[in-house]
């Protein structure tokens, strides 16, 4: 999977899960202020990403640092790269 494919998969999965428009899914948007997610949504976000990429991330401290959609892209790309080595 290329980086762009990973980004597209994330955007589509989150847009479907949280009823967002794909046009809104820009890397620099805040998932809280711009996309309207809140702390109650982060659990679902993790489940959606785990389902889309078949990995486990719920115990990872880095998840708590995520603020923008770009942070999610980078985090997932890093995770996939590390797992493929």
């Amino acid at each position, binding site marked *: 999977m290329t980086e762009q494919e990973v980004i597209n998969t994330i955007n589509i999965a989150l847009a479907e*899960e*949280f*009823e967002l428009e794909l046009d809104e899914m820009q890397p620099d948007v805040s998932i809280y202020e711009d996309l309207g997610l809140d*702390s*109650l*949504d982060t*659990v*679902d976000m993790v*489940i*959606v990403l*785990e*389902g889309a990429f078949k990995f486990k991330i719920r115990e990872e401290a880095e998840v708590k640092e995520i603020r923008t959609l770009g942070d999610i892209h980078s985090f997932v790309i890093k995770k996939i790269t590390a797992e493929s080595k």
Partner: protein
Amino acid sequence: MPVISSTHIVIMNLWVYGLLALWTLLGVGLSPLASGYLRLRYRWSTDRIVRHLIWLYGRGWLLLISPFIDFKRDGLGDEEVPDGCVFVINHLSFFDTYFMGALPHSDVTFAVRSWPFKMFWYRFFMRMANYLEVEEQGWQQTTEQGIQILNKGGSVLFFPEGHRSRDGQLQRFYSGAFQLAVASGRPIVPLCISGTGVLLPPGRKSLHPASVRLRILPPVSVESFQHEGGHLQLRKQVKGLMAQTLAEMSSSAESALVKGR
């Protein structure tokens, strides 16, 4: 829409808010006596007693609004609503909670965000009733406490949208209610309410006459959702059912209005 005079609205507001204040004072005043009776009669715990008193308060609300609000409950009958279930309901108005007095069971624990707990006149009773403050606790603790409530035969009620709808349309659903249902194995019972957005929508303080309908849908079993991410599929299915039912209710209300002209 039928024309309603401003005099009618003024009388309604004086009547409902006035009687609601009296009913509240009477309820608070009589609650120690009622608690003592319920404790002796049924040996209920304090939180169970307070939930019952809140339910009775809701019953009183239904009575005092009856001259101005045409309220009907349909769907499942009293005997068909299971004990120990997870209720989910759409949210249109501050007064939606008051209409839960129309539910057949009084042992209903509300799972709500933090803002209702910030109103001091509610907070005391909400704490006494062991209501769940989901924003403060998070889903994990809410699920653990919810399972304990369900195991004792009580039900838990969620507003899965989290906020009142501003346009009457169903909003995005949070997943807590569905996580609890899947984790506990208890059914979801969807409730659809309409008309309270006319009675008192967000941002308005004066009440308006309305036809309010509360429909109790058949329980949705969680058996086929017991897998990773199953609660998200359950959420989607229940939201679809509710959206379809609300559309039917809206269409029936419009037909009734046309016939009444």
